[in-house]
């Protein structure tokens, strides 16, 4: 069995993630920040530790600006809907996931927010000159993914951040696919809002994600409710992080995420990147030698995370994915990957692609096994 679907959810997780979650369930269990008793304080300390670990991973000075949410989509929705008002202008790339595209399309319809989508090149990479020209008008917010979930292509965040700073407006990044796989320095990249998910490269469980909000930026919360603080007051508190964290957190998930991030900090992102880049390079070099395979995304593996979208010319990706799974035990994702505009950009709409997404725990032997499987799949109906 080979797991090549890490871009949907990474697997396996480091053992310490599982033991942190188990520990919480067995020994703590209480609600963080609600009561003054010892178990509640323990739960609160686990949440604080995770918040601080995430802040360290992204070079964030004030951990209270890291908001925990249900997942990356919720974080993106909080940033987008909490910020934008009627008449605002948003610039985004055509490689954005539906978790960015759909809330924006909704606001376009309901609040008359103006959208400008910058179509990327055929390999899914952004032409910075196209962005620069668009930014000459009045722009409220620029949104870019750090790495495409379809091609794996890495966006030049530092350069985008510089352009946004020069032209004005805020810069929001969707790091769901890259956090834990690529270095992220929010100051250096000029990022104002950053959404992340816990269950992919950050190696935590499903059901936890978040949003970082830079100092000085005020967002409207998406929901109001109990925070454990300011209980005598019927209005939502103003303080971070409580203002955006109504309702009990997924504390067991936060505990797991904390252990995942501590694993990343210990191994170091640079090491993780080195390993993942070597794996994807081996995979792509091998695939290039198989006739009839079309590989999408940037030519040089240096410019992508460990994702490779491909097709056998003239064949249905769903059929290829089915054969890989049932005949060879290789699990991957086929179709449109919730990013129709990205597939239009690379010319694979509506059939989509077969996507292999690798992670830190994949091994080189698995890549060779998969290459053999691809050669056999080619013979099977080709």
């Amino acid at each position, binding site marked *: 069995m080979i797991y090549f679907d890490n871009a949907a959810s990474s697997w396996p997780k480091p053992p310490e993630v599982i033991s942190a979650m188990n520990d919480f369930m067995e020994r703590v269990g209480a609600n963080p*920040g609600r009561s003054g008793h010892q178990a509640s304080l323990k739960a609160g300390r686990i949440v604080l530790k995770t918040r601080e670990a995430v802040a360290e991973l992204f070079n964030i000075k004030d951990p209270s600006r890291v908001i925990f949410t249900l997942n990356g989509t919720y974080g993106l929705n909080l940033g987008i809907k909490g910020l934008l008002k009627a008449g605002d202008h948003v610039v985004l790339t055509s490689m954005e996931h539906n978790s960015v595209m759909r809330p924006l399309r909704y606001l376009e319809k309901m609040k008359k927010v103006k959208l400008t989508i910058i179509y990327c090149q055929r390999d899914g990479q952004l032409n910075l000159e196209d962005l620069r020209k668009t930014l000459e008008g009045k722009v409220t917010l620029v949104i870019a993914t750090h790495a495409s979930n379809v091609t794996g292509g890495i966006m030049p965040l530092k350069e985008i951040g510089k352009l946004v700073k020069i032209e004005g407006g805020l810069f929001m990044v969707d790091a769901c696919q890259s956090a834990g796989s690529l270095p992220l320095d929010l100051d250096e990249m000029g990022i104002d809002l950053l959404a992340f998910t816990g269950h992919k490269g950050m190696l935590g469980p499903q059901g936890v994600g978040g949003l970082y909000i830079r100092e000085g930026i005020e967002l409207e919360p998406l929901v109001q409710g109990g925070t454990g603080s300011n209980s005598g007051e019927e209005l939502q508190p103003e303080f971070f992080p409580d203002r955006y964290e109504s309702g009990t957190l997924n504390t067991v998930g936060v505990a797991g995420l904390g252990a995942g991030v501590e694993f990343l900090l210990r191994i170091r992102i640079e090491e993780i990147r080195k390993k993942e880049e070597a794996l994807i390079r081996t995979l792509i070099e091998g695939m290039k030698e198989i006739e009839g395979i079309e590989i999408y995304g940037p030519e040089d593996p240096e410019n992508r995370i460990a994702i490779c979208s491909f097709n056998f010319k003239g064949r249905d990706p769903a059929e290829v994915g089915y054969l890989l799974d049932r005949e060879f035990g290789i699990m991957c994702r086929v179709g449109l990957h919730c990013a129709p505009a990205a597939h239009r950009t690379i010319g694979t709409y509506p059939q989509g692609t077969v996507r292999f997404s690798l992670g830190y725990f994949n091994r080189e032997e698995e890549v060779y096994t998969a290459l053999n499987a691809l050669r056999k799949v080619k013979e099977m109906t080709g």
Partner: protein
Amino acid sequence: MKEKKGCIITFPTVHQALRAEKILTQYKFMVTVLPVPREISSDCGIAIKFSGEDETRIKTILDDSNVKIEGIHYLKGKKVEEEGQN
């Protein structure tokens, strides 16, 4: 000068209170996290108690660490005396 037996710091959020606890423990101060006594009104349900002698140093450290505090209260026997909200 009034005699200071103990101090209680209150915080706007649990996040700030637990951060203060962590930092002060790292500096080896003897601190106790406790539910906010009834006589004090606070936005967050937990507070930190410590010896009045450490007040100035603790205030400086928390300020340098960017921990937001809400108020400082002095314990005089069982009575709590408040000194200016922050």
